[in-house]
């Protein structure tokens, strides 16, 4: 087989935990004759497969299942992710070049500082120039570009003083070199670039890592559906390949991959990701259905009406676009500092130049001192202060299962004083849990487990989960058969046992299932969406942090009331996405900084509009994309831990700023007096950077 004929596919496999998983996957997968090569990326918990063109996604997932791993296909993905990784790599290259140049120039500079004179000093200066000038041209590009962009729009940011400083210092040093001067600041200029690039790179790595985590979580991305062709044959199609007019078959327990109209079958759909409503909805032929909803009961034939990017209800997409604009107006703390800092630095340098000119020092000497002032005040520590603290915090949070999308999210999280919580899927687990399992005796439990194990139905899975936790062993049954829309049936000794829809119908909206032997009902088990185990503790912890909480739910009042009572929170119910958005705007107008917690598609606009937002890992793709950070697992406590960590990070960042200002208070007068030689500049710069990074590392320690 030629290499060109192979198809490359990526799968997210969240359960890769150890070396033997790598071995099992890589060696086990290639035994499947459809798979030519498998490569595990442990860091990103992904597996890259090269497979023959005929291999369908369900077959490949089956190959993972055979080895005992759960795999989710990842689409080839938007180009965006690739480009982001490319920026990181570009920055890393620039860091490497600046680091190389810095070390070599420092080597030459140390000789100059230790007393080289005359021709040797000139030679060393020339060599330094030879290394420094191309380095500045290459490694300085990110700063020059950003500074130019800011200046063109009549604004100024941190990069403006950096660019002016580096350029001025390089030109002055070149002039010094040509006129056999004693001091060249090439080492200073390159060292500055190196430290700043480190900060930039850390920032970008942090964003990449979070984005990688989020991509792995986007369950619906790259999924697909079984499509029925014109001649009645079925084949698997990726979600991206679905087109309006196609007919897809959706089995019970599957999520819909596209919007459409039901053309065959009747079932109940779980809309909780879409609307926050906890009760399932009946659908029949000719009902419109939406992507992301979960088919609960029976197989469904759906004619696709909208696929891919069009699926998210247009209204919600529009609202999200509008809501996100508010957030883009947020100015990061480093840029806010730069607004004050940049003009101050420029004024100082100008004052130094003017002062020495008036004192009659000549333009050359005055310019040299102005350059020294610029290089010493350059926000080297500032450029490192924020990203260093934020990446340490993000790393700590990631260990606790919280993914932070970028540094500005941490800054915004630290400021929130009001939490608005969605109910379904956020305060609750967002999946049915069996309520009265304890009422069954062990014999019934083992029968239920034996039957539930055989089915992929969401209720069966909930039963399996619940019973396995209780260490129940399944009863020995034979001839298990699942009837879609009805339940599971099997032979137990010489009797027929069934687990399925209650015969007398369900009472109210509650989901329920019934265990029957020989057609006689033995026990019925009700299901409900349970509160997260630590929801109460979290609302109390939020209060001690000075954050009020309120429930905003799209669900009916009588479904929300018990939760609100249990948690002692006020609640607004029956809210549409617009209502949630309006509620947030009202609170923001009243001066609150709102933290929005939500998971559904209906929370998307609110998540985008909140000052900061968080979503659970089980959230809809829209929710995960709109939120600033995502917490994994069933516990809600990470929300509070994240806020605490964000506040500590912000405190460290402010300390770092103070350190940087303190350092300037000492160093600037020296520069003004013309006492800053390249040696002093080098020591001051690296010293302040080390202090700032060291301070940031304090975040790694357990919260005291």
């Amino acid at each position: 087989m030629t290499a060109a004929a192979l198809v490359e596919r990526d799968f997210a496999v969240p359960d890769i935990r150890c070396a033997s998983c790598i071995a099992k996957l890589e060696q086990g997968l290639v035994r499947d004759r459809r798979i030519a090569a498998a490569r595990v990326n442990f860091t990103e918990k992904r597996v890259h497969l090269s497979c023959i063109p005929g291999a369908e996604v369900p077959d490949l997932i089956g190959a993972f299942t055979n080895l005992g791993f759960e795999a989710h296909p990842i689409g080839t993905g938007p180009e965006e992710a690739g480009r982001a990784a490319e920026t990181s790599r570009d920055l890393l290259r620039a860091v490497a070049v600046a680091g190389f140049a810095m070390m070599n120039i420092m080597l030459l500079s140390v000789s100059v500082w230790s007393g080289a004179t005359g021709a040797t000093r000139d030679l060393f200066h020339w060599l330094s120039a030879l290394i420094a000038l191309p380095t500045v041209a290459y490694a300085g590009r990110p700063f020059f570009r950003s500074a130019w962009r800011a200046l063109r729009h009549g604004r100024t940011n941190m990069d403006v003083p950096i660019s002016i400083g580096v350029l001025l210092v390089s030109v002055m040093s070149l002039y010094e070199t040509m006129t056999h001067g004693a001091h060249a600041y090439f080492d200073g200029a390159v060292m500055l670039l190196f430290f700043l690039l480190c900060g930039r790179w850390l920032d970008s790595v942090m964003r990449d890592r979070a984005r990688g985590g989020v991509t792995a979580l986007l369950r619906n991305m790259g999924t697909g559906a079984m499509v029925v062709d014109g001649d009645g044959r079925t084949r698997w199609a990726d979600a991206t390949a679905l087109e309006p007019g196609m007919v897809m078959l959706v089995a019970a327990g599957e999520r819909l991959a596209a919007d459409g109209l039901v053309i065959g079958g009747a079932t109940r759909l779980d809309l909780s990701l879409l609307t926050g409503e906890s009760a399932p909805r009946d659908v029949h032929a000719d009902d419109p259905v939406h992507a992301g909803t979960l088919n609960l009961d029976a197989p469904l034939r759906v004619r696709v009406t909208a696929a891919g990017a069009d699926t998210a209800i247009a209204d919600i997409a529009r609202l999200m676009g509008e809501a996100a604009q508010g957030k883009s107006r947020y100015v990061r703390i480093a840029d806010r500092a730069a607004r004050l800092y940049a003009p101050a630095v420029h004024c100082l340098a100008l004052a130094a130049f003017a002062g020495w000119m008036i004192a009659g020092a000549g333009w050359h000497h005055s310019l040299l001192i102005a350059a020294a002032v610029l290089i010493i005040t350059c926000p080297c520590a500032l450029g490192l202060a924020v990203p260093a603290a934020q990446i340490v915090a993000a790393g700590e949070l990631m260990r606790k299962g919280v993914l932070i999308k970028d540094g500005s999210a941490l800054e915004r999280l630290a400021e929130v004083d009001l939490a608005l919580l969605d109910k379904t899927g956020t305060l609750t687990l967002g999946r049915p849990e069996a309520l009265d399992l304890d009422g069954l005796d062990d014999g019934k439990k083992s029968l239920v487990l034996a039957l539930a194990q055989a089915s992929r139905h969401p209720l069966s899975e909930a039963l399996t989960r619940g019973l396995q936790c209780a260490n129940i062993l399944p009863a020995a049954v034979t001839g298990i058969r699942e009837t879609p829309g009805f339940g599971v049936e099997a032979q137990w000794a010489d009797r027929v046992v069934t687990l399925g829809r209650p015969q007398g119908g369900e009472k109210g909206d509650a989901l329920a299932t019934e265990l029957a032997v020989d057609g006689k009902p033995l026990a019925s088990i009700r299901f409900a969406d349970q509160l997260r185990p630590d929801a109460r503790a979290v609302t109390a912890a939020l209060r001690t942090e000075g954050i009020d909480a309120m429930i905003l739910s799209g669900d009916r009042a009588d479904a929300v009331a018990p939760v609100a009572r249990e948690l002692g929170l006020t609640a607004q119910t029956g809210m549409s996405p617009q209502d949630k958005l309006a509620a947030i705007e009202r609170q923001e107008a009243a001066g609150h900084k709102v933290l929005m917690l939500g998971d559904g598609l209906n929370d998307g606009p609110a998540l985008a509009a909140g000052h900061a937002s968080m979503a659970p890992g089980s959230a809809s793709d829209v929710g995960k994309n709109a939120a600033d950070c995502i917490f994994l697992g069933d516990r809600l406590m990470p929300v509070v831990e994240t806020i605490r960590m964000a506040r500590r990070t912000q405190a460290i960042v402010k300390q770092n700023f103070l350190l940087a200002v303190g350092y300037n208070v000492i160093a600037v007068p020296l520069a003004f007096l013309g006492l800053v030689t390249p040696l002093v500049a080098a020591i001051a710069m690296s010293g302040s950077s080390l202090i700032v990074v060291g301070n940031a590392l304090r975040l790694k320690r357990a919260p005291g």
Partner: protein
Amino acid sequence: MNGLAFLIPIALGLGLLGLGAFFWSLRQGQFEDLDGAALRIFVEDEEEPS
């Protein structure tokens, strides 16, 4: 001064060599999966049943 004529090019050359090696390994994707690389030492090569 003569010593410098050798030593400086050697110093720079070694530095460039390091930089080149880093760029090479970056392009080879050796930094793509750092945690996995640490674990792969435990993976035994599968013996081909011949």
